[in-house]
């Protein structure tokens, strides 16, 4: 399956992406080209990235190569000729994850093995993720980062909410954008076990960042269905998401 990659950038955080040319189980470098893609006026714009291959095994993208709109992926050399600028496709079955590192200038760094699989880019839905699992009330700053990649080149607004599950109320509302790395700053007082981040309409990868004394922690949360191995998993998770949607819509 095709995998897409993305970076993160704001006034404090910069990122670096190491994109491998080999799969975990097959340590053989593939002759693939790295592409950058971003939406503009309802079209996907594609560009070849040729200068960032550091050896046979890796492309490394630095902060100057990255914006919150860009997505990156590997495909065959001749993709530009057959590229459809209306929809992203499964260009190459090549399962990989990239090391996505965020860092502070003159400070710490943190990374995880990231990807945005093709199977997610045509789906609508709801992100549901607890805030206290990865945020830190002792930190100086906490961010929730939500990256959406949608197959069509749209730049549509959608909402995210911080829901208080015990009080059944919305604590805060955020405006997000499709095909964008959305960076939300989180108030410390909202880092509690009963607070969840919930999106409407679009899904994405929820990631959490904490900063203290120039140290960083950065990790993504797992979707709720990964906690249950039963045939009724989607029924159980849908019920929980429905409860959250009822709080949003009441």
């Amino acid at each position, binding site marked *: 399956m095709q995998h897409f990659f993305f970076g993160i950038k704001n006034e404090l955080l910069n990122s670096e992406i*190491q994109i*491998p040319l080999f799969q975990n189980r097959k340590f053989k470098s593939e002759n693939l080209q790295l592409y950058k893609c971003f939406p503009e006026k309802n079209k996907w714009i594609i560009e070849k990235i040729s200068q960032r291959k550091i050896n046979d095994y890796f492309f490394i993208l630095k902060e100057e190569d990255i914006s919150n709109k860009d997505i990156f992926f590997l495909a065959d050399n001749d993709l530009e000729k057959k590229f459809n600028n209306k929809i992203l496709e499964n260009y190459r079955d090549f399962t990989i994850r*990239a090391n996505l590192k965020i860092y502070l200038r003159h400070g710490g760094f943190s*990374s995880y093995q990231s990807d945005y699989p093709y199977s997610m880019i045509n789906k609508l839905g709801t992100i549901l993720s607890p805030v206290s699992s990865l945020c830190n009330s002792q930190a100086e700053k906490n961010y929730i980062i939500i990256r959406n990649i949608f197959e069509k080149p749209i730049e549509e607004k959608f909402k995210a909410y911080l829901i208080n599950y015990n009080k059944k109320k919305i604590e805060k509302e955020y405006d997000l954008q499709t095909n964008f790395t959305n960076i939300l700053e989180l108030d410390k007082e909202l880092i509690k076990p009963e607070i969840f981040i919930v999106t409407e309409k679009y899904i994405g990868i929820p990631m*959490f960042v904490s900063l203290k004394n120039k*140290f960083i922690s950065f*990790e993504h949360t797992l979707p709720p269905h990964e*906690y249950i191995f039963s045939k009724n998993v989607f029924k159980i998770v849908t019920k929980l998401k429905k409860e959250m949607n009822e709080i949003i819509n009441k």
Partner: protein
Amino acid sequence: MKSLINKFKKNKLLKFLANTELGFLLRNSLQVYPQSFKTPKKKYPISISDCFLWRTDKNYQTKFKYADLLNLFYKIENSWVEFHFYSKNNKLIKIRKIENLDLFNELVIDSKFFNNLEDYGVFYIYHFSMNSKIMEEDNVLVNRCYLGYSQNNNLFSFVHGNVYAKYTSILSNKKIEHNMMKMSFLMNENYAIQKYFDGFDQTELVFINPSSKTLKFKIEGQKYMLKAGCCRIIEIKQPVISILSNCRLLRPTVFSYKNRYLDVHHS
């Protein structure tokens, strides 16, 4: 070959044999329908735990964040969790039961927690409840959880659970089993880490054997063996790392250091 495999699939006896412990060993050794792990099918609800690394060596503290899954997904109150802590050589050193759970909880593991032990090892979490009325027989809960590692009292660097390891009955009436991870007779599994380990002062890879068999692996030309449940920290030097082993899912946890900063993540 395809028709042979189809015949094989339709034969109930062969299908049964292929799903025995020996069957998995043979499949993984011959690379015929290899499988990393098998979800247990039992006639009772199950709590699966990953194998989690604890560190109190080198001035480390470990913070473990976990959800009350029974309350979150099934609205079952008054459940409890049990933590089973093991040394790096798989010796049980502590069991901690925690009741009165919040929806999300945390446990800090420092050297004081182990009577001033400065070392590293493995732990597991199991969810239990006496309330079985809404738990269907085939319910299987997996607590992936989040682990933070802090050195010298600095910010915890978090990482999620890595690999399934052990399981038991949520009704707290069965023994703990640890045969989920499927191995091979041969060292025929390759796992290349998709990170370029260049420019760090030091990088450690932490290997935990999640299986009930002996884990054999080779890294940077050096061979290692780990008995069931054991773990080991290995410092690496090369920028590109490939691991040869007899385990289909051997993903070490990475600790990369530069200046005074630390990054922990799964490979």
